[in-house]
């Protein structure tokens, strides 16, 4: 994945605080999570996907990434905001 090409040095994983905390809650080593964001940034959905992948695979390999097809349905992951139909404020211009 993109994370492999662009891993930052010093073993640092780039992830927001919410994802880091979720990783601790789920017992996930965040350094082992494949990030789907730019530069391999890890978000909460990535952490959940990793956790589900781990639970699914005996021995807990960390190659079950976000796209793992036969992983159990994760809790609805906040990949986009809510149920609202979010539009850019600017696209309304000129009307």
């Amino acid at each position, binding site marked *: 994945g993109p994370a492999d090409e662009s891993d930052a040095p010093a073993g640092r994983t780039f992830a*927001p605080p919410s994802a880091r905390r979720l990783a601790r809650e789920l017992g996930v080593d965040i350094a082992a999570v494949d990030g789907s964001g730019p530069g391999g940034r890890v978000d909460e959905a990535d952490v959940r996907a990793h956790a589900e992948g781990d639970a699914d695979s005996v021995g807990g390999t960390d190659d079950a990434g976000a796209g793992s097809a036969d992983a159990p349905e994760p809790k609805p992951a906040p990949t986009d905001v*809510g149920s609202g139909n979010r539009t850019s404020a600017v696209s309304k211009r000129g009307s």
Partner: protein
Amino acid sequence: MVVGDIATGTEVLVIGAGPGGYVAAIRAAQEGLDTTLVEKDAYGGVCLNRGCIPSKALITGSGLAHEAGNAEFMGVHADPAVDLGKMVEWKDGVVDRLTGGVEKLCKANGVNLVEGTASFVDEHTVRVAHGGEGQGSESIEFEHAIVATGSRPIQIPGLEFEAEHVWTSADALDADVVPDRLGIVGGGYIGMELATTYAKLGADVTVVEMLDDILDPYEDDVKRIVRKRAEELGVEFRFGEGASGWSEGGDGGYLLHAETEAGEESTYGVDKILVAVGRRPVTDGLDLENAGIETDDRGFIETDDRTRTAVEHVHAVGDVAGEPMLAHAASKEGIVAAEVIAGEPAAMDQRAIPAAVFTDPEIGTVGMTEGEAEADGFDPVVGEMPFNASGRAMTTGHTEGFVRIVADEETEFVLGGQIVGPEASELIAEIALAVEMGATLEDVAATVHTHPTLAEAVMEAAENARGQAIHTLNR
């Protein structure tokens, strides 16, 4: 290319060197495109010459004098005198440095500068009439054009700007004497910034506003704080009255006439009248129709999310392309226009454009209010931190206002924020980044904020929304 040369062709032609146009031109040149920028008046446009920058300079000067004159409570005794002429001179120096900088930056990036008034000849040609007699004109062919001609103040019948005592905002920023009595028509952000400035400079200010409150687009509790403070500064408000004209006052001054919808007339004794009721796009003389471009019924040029007009290779950015008529929106659109022309995947895709009002206290907003979030189908949760609970605010003597943060309840994604209070214009930047990044309330709350700062209030508001505020009681 030297001004006056006959330019035969350019890849990108930009018309207007305001914050929309000059930023577009610089970015286009950075993208390696041969770029020509035409300006008929002054580099930097309204913003640098008679808008954002001059107003903020006078707000600083009048604010400092007022603050120092009212600081006995903290043991500072001063009785400041303001020389408005000198303040305006300082302001002019700031403007000169900035507009000179814009010109230099354009040149350093390789933008061809042409002085003159552009008008479309056809879809791929403009004629530029050089200012002054016998300066002639030149034709420029272009592959792509960016129209960035900006806006000018709306005039009210009966209050034409020809009269010396009827001011545009530009006049108000160039006065060298503080009028004893200043009538301001319009309680929008320009009217309110200048009402605050002149009240602090010692004028008796009366604001006449057709609506029943100031600062129309803002929420009631935001408006209230700014209005109350303006009243404390001595500003009188006349709501529900439309200004209709003026007459001689007999005392050497004038009478500002206003009437309610029901037809009741009032007059207010004034020495100057500032008309600040909005701005309209500048497209006259551009001969847009020669390029096949139409304007909407308010005169704005319609564009898509790539800043393209109906004629694909002609873009429009900034005030001439409609709301929000703000300098940073113009610049963002300018960057997008240049990048789209260069074939980059740019778009006006940002979630939110922040806005600030530099009243006392300031307002800073970005993204959605609670009501807008609801209307958009979110289930919003809101957190607040009043500045009167902020240690930093107390140590500055400015504790009016609050930070409010709006998020989606389920996902905690930050949707917007409203700040009224000290440095609101600066503090909103963090919430803007949170909105753009898809940060959650937890992300903002978990980010360590320096103590003691006003920015801590953003963190506290996020904690408050999660029922975890330390320095306020949670709802």
